């Protein structure tokens, strides 16, 4: 059984190599363009460049020179990390042979197979990998648009928005109200808003203990709900109030000038208003014409889009099935995609797709929890195989170990994304 599989893999690889090698030699070095330097794009670019050892030209297009990870940005809000701790540069990728271009991709011509950049350049590709993360749906929260993001930050793309939200948190009057408008499904990092609430509560408990946190949530249920609610009750008794759709939180409106939040017509004055609107695939996926609705449908086996076999979409922007939109998922999908792209361009061995995800969240100092699952590729989608979640009532020792493990994971994934020197 096991031997059969190996024999099969070996034979098919040899066959592919025999067929592909002469063609490949006859033409120029194949070109891969990757748009977006986060958990999906940086990983895919690094793996293709590293494993192809010069046989593929890899160009990564990423506008920012320092990438701030969304994962652990809540820990920055809570004071567990400095902003520098979550910022990473692209020198390690360049050292792995990736041509890193700091520019915006503003268009894709799928017939000519080129990506156009804001700076005017046009990049030809044989395979295009889009990993643009998320953008926000226009009009998702009445009264809010991107021009209001300074008055009411989303902080759902990390960096200056995270710093702004933290400054606003620190400037809150004693006894003030921190409001969060939580997003509807599906969205980036399902436990993210609730970990953020935990981190804000951690800060307020020490610095502003009479303050309140009000969550307006359009969803009935949310990720790790039992764990978060247990933690909020244990650590932050009475500080956190969540209003769900049963009390009208699916009907909210904000006024960034008056600093008010209206839930089902009841107007509240708030001091900080963290608006996390409904999300969609990063705009370049739409411009490339590979989206259907808000997201880009992909084939589970290799992350190629349903619209175009030479265009792949990774991470948050992809509509792939059962995996949550997380950095871990994007990193996992990137490796499957890198293996498939390399195989298609150079005839290297292609192995069956396997995916995994784990999301750690911090509720209070040394109180970490996690949820995770493994996945496989079916004809229809990426399908869940098996999973686990932290239990309520776990010992302090287990929770501390879980938190320390999350620190280890962070160091691991950023080394995996950006190369060891990042």
């Amino acid at each position, binding site marked *: 059984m*096991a*031997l059969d*599989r*190996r024999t099969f*893999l070996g034979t098919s690889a040899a066959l592919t190599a025999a067929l592909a090698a002469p063609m490949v030699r006859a033409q120029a070095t194949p070109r891969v363009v990757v748009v977006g330097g986060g958990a999906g794009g940086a990983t895919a670019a690094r*793996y293709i460049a590293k*494993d192809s050892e010069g046989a593929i030209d890899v160009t990564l297009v990423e506008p920012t020179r320092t990438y701030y990870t969304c994962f652990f940005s809540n820990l920055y809000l809570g004071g567990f990390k400095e902003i520098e701790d979550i910022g990473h540069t692209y020198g390690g990728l360049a050292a792995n042979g990736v041509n890193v271009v700091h520019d915006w991709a503003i268009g894709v011509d799928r017939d000519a197979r080129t990506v156009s950049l804001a700076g005017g350049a046009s990049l030809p590709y044989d395979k295009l990998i889009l990993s643009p993360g998320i953008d926000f749906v226009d009009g998702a929260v009445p009264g809010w648009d991107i021009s209001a993001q300074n008055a009411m930050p989303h902080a759902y793309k990390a960096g200056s928005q995270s710093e702004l939200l933290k400054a606003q948190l620190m400037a809150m009057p004693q006894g003030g109200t921190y409001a969060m408008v939580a997003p509807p499904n599906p969205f980036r990092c399902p436990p993210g808003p609730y970990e953020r609430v935990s981190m804000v509560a951690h800060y307020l408990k020490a610095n502003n203990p009479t303050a309140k946190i009000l969550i307006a949530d359009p969803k009935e249920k949310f990720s790790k709900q039992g764990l978060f609610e247990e933690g909020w009750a244990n650590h932050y008794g009475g500080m956190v109030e969540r209003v769900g759709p049963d009390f009208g939180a699916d009907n909210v409106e904000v006024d960034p000038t008056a600093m008010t939040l209206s839930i089902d017509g009841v107007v509240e004055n708030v001091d900080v208003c963290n608006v996390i609107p409904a999300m969609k695939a990063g705009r370049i996926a739409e411009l490339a014409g590979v989206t259907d609705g808000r997201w880009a449908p992909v084939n589970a086996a290799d992350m190629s889009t349903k619209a175009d076999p030479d265009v792949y979409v990774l991470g948050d922007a992809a509509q792939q099935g059962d995996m949550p939109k997380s950095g*871990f998922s994007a*990193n*996992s999908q990137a*490796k499957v995609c890198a*293996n498939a792209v390399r195989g298609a361009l150079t005839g290297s*061995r292609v*192995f069956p797709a*396997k995916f*995994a995800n*784990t999301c750690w969240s911090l509720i209070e100092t040394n109180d970490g929890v*996690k949820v*995770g*699952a*493994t996945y496989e590729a079916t004809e229809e989608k990426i399908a869940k*195989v*098996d*999973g*686990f979640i932290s239990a309520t009532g776990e010992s302090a020792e287990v929770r501390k170990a879980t938190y*320390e*493990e*999350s*620190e*280890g*994971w*962070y*160091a*691991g*994934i950023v*080394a*995996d994304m950006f190369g*060891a020197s990042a």
Partner: protein
Amino acid sequence: MRLAAASLSLAAALSIVAVGVSAQGLGDAAAGEKVFDECKACHQVGPGARNRIGPHLNGLFGRKAAGLEGFHYSDSLRRAGTNGLEWHADTLHAYIENPRAFASGTRMSYRGLKDPEERADLLAYLRGYSDAPIDIPEADPTATATDHDLDPAILAIVGDPEYGEYLSGECTTCHQADGNVDGIPSITYWPEEDFVVAMHAYKNKQRSHPVMQMIAGRLNDEEIAALAAYFKDIGN
């Protein structure tokens, strides 16, 4: 820059130790044998002891740091050895108390032994295996890799390292390929047998970590062998 910082912290650690413990720093060897239970999963000591996940500890006292031929040490310990670090009671006390504070890049996935008495007992036990070979007590080597009921046919599978490299993508999201330990243990350069035994222990739920049970649970025997073949001499 990093080198300078490392040797500075090394010097600081050593000076603290010099004040804190007696010149010998050795305690009760019999008690130390029990303390050594914590080390056995990775280290062997005694007649026939071999390098496993960690180096064997025969002749440890007086050995240069990273001084065994044929063991893949971290760069951090190799540098320390080149700079003249030798293992004696004082340096071992400092290292075992907090390995990563002492040598930040060590692959030894061990939080440290805080109790100075326990450390002294442990060192007394290890000291017994560091005299002339004739003095080594006639005890069995502390092998734990054979402490399992894995089908020999599973251990005999020859892993495909190229497939292992592909599969390793699932490991390196958390376990750093260069063996750095930041809260998640190193799995780099493990002997194949230890790797296979550990993964099957997760798969069979004899080891308890939920993430690892999940990951190992859907790897077949061939895939585990492939991973073991890749990580035993991962090209970093």
